[in-house]
């Protein structure tokens, strides 16, 4: 029996949403595991952030040291390795984020501890820790059970659960950094801000978003014609930007932009979780996809199951006609 250690995540002076989201899960789970939830913060100049997260009623432990000015997977691994030996948590949980995935697998190998990544749910049942995660880009759910171990490692998906309300404050404890000197073999250099393009899709009223279903860029003109007819901007999924059909700064999703148009028309987009996360804020969603099982339909208001190329030309024609 032991505590659930939650590694809070922050960047450029601000805590990231995943830090709070994990608090929707950790305290209850810790109770079932016979311990309590404890948040761990690693960084430099952490007073504000520590206070903020302690405001969610969970104890916070802080490693505050200039060595942790910026994220560094190797340093995090070293600190966590030492802290696991010290604190013997039953579970260490981090975000399934660019940070979490950068050190958790290595930590698992180093400590010979079991790891399950990208959890969307966690349950402790009959002394067994079970994780819900997704396979095949969200088409299949899996319940994965850990075999009994002293410490389990889990990375938790961003946006899978909602953060709880803040509550009464809790204690903040500073702990000495187990890392005494910098490491030479991995160095943080700088941040590079997201690209800005000619159109800022975060401000668009109407977006037509295309995905891999476009197949080739020679199919773009039909889409552009439709866009022109309704004064929409064209955005897309990662598959569409990776393919070079549209510029990178028009990618919607976790590694792209978060958009909130009045109307979002998704065509040939399956609706991977990373995509949905970027367009949840759209007021009305239309989805056109030939696969009736496509997850994009879970967020749609109006749905067409069909070949987009059979629908779009007529749609453009009819819209032009109706709008005069």
């Amino acid at each position, binding site marked *: 029996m032991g505590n659930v250690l939650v590694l809070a995540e922050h960047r450029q002076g601000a805590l990231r949403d995943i830090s709070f989201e994990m608090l929707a899960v950790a305290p209850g789970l810790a109770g079932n595991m016979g311990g309590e939830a404890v948040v761990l913060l690693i960084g430099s100049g952490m007073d504000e952030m520590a206070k903020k997260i302690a405001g969610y009623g969970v104890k916070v432990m802080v490693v505050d040291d200039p060595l942790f000015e910026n994220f560094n997977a190797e340093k995090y691994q070293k600190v966590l390795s030492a802290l696991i030996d010290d604190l013997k948590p039953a579970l260490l949980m981090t975000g399934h984020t660019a940070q979490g995935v950068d050190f*958790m697998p290595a930590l698992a190998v180093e400590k010979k501890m079991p790891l399950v990544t990208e959890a969307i749910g966690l349950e402790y049942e009959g002394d067994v820790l079970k994780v819900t995660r997704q396979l095949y880009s969200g088409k299949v759910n899996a319940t994965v059970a850990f075999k009994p171990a002293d410490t389990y490692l889990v990375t938790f998906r961003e946006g899978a659960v909602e953060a709880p309300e803040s509550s009464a404050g809790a204690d903040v404890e500073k702990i000495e950094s187990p890392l005494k000197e910098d490491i030479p073999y991995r160095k943080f250099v700088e941040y590079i801000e997201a690209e800005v393009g000619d159109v800022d899709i975060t401000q668009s009223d109407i977006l037509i978003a295309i995905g891999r279903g476009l197949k080739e860029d020679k199919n773009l003109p039909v889409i552009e014609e439709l866009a022109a007819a309704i004064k929409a901007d064209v955005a897309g999924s990662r598959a569409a930007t990776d393919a070079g059909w549209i510029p990178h700064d028009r990618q919607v999703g976790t590694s792209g932009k978060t958009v909130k148009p009045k109307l979002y028309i998704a065509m040939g987009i399956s609706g991977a979780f990373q995509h949905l996360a970027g367009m949840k804020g759209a007021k009305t969603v239309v989805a056109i996809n030939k696969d009736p*099982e496509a997850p994009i339909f879970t967020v749609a208001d109006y749905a*067409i199951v069909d070949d987009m190329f059979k629908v779009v030309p007529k749609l453009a024609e009819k819209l032009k006609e109706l709008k005069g």
Partner: protein
Amino acid sequence: MKTLVCIKYVPDTSEAEVKVNPDGISVDDSRFSFDINDSDNYAVEESVLIKEAQGGEVTVFSIGPKKSDVMIRMAMAKGCDQAVRVEDDRIAGHDPLMVAKTLAGAIKGHEFDLIMTGCVAVDDGHMATGAALAEELGVNHATMVKKVEVGDGKVTVHRELEGGMLESVEVELPAVLTIQTGINEPRYAPIRGIRQAQKKELKVVSLDDIGVDPDSVGSDASQVVIEKLYIPEVESTAEFLEGEPEEKAEKLASILVKGGLV
């Protein structure tokens, strides 16, 4: 520069219906078409680009069945020099830590400056194999890489963070990099390359051949068990427009116009 690139043959399920087998813990993949995992395709391209710029060689590593040879030959047609495929039913393929241990075993004895993997396999989606492999081999790593600049004894890479932001990081070689999609434009294999690829060496090995104890990477060694697979309900409250494609288009157009949405 000696580069190793790890690639996986995965089913394309983007347009297909996925069914769970009666055993409840596996998926019926008999009807799927398979291809190289998306990010691995970018890893192959990146390794060939580095070879073209710096000289050296690229060796492909893959764990998988015989049918993956098509993918491996294609990578060789694009410029990879040789390949090792591990085929063994005893590997717990759903556990990235077991996969990493097997890859590490296969890689031992091969010199390398750089190892590239994809950042995530689209079937299991662990996003864990590359960093675990680095630890197994005792070398540095960086994940989710969108740019690689080879320097003297080190690489400077751009790691993809959330929201389109990047982080530039310097890592000493040798190192494992997990490559993210969009880092380059994967080429098509030239006809000449396809012919040459047939003559390149593709070694098929078992766990015994690479000196990995089957008990150390099998389902007994794995600390995780798939208990159940199930299809998540696609709960949609959407209004599905019915009819011929043209009718659907007309219905949608009038909904958009009448609703004042356009």
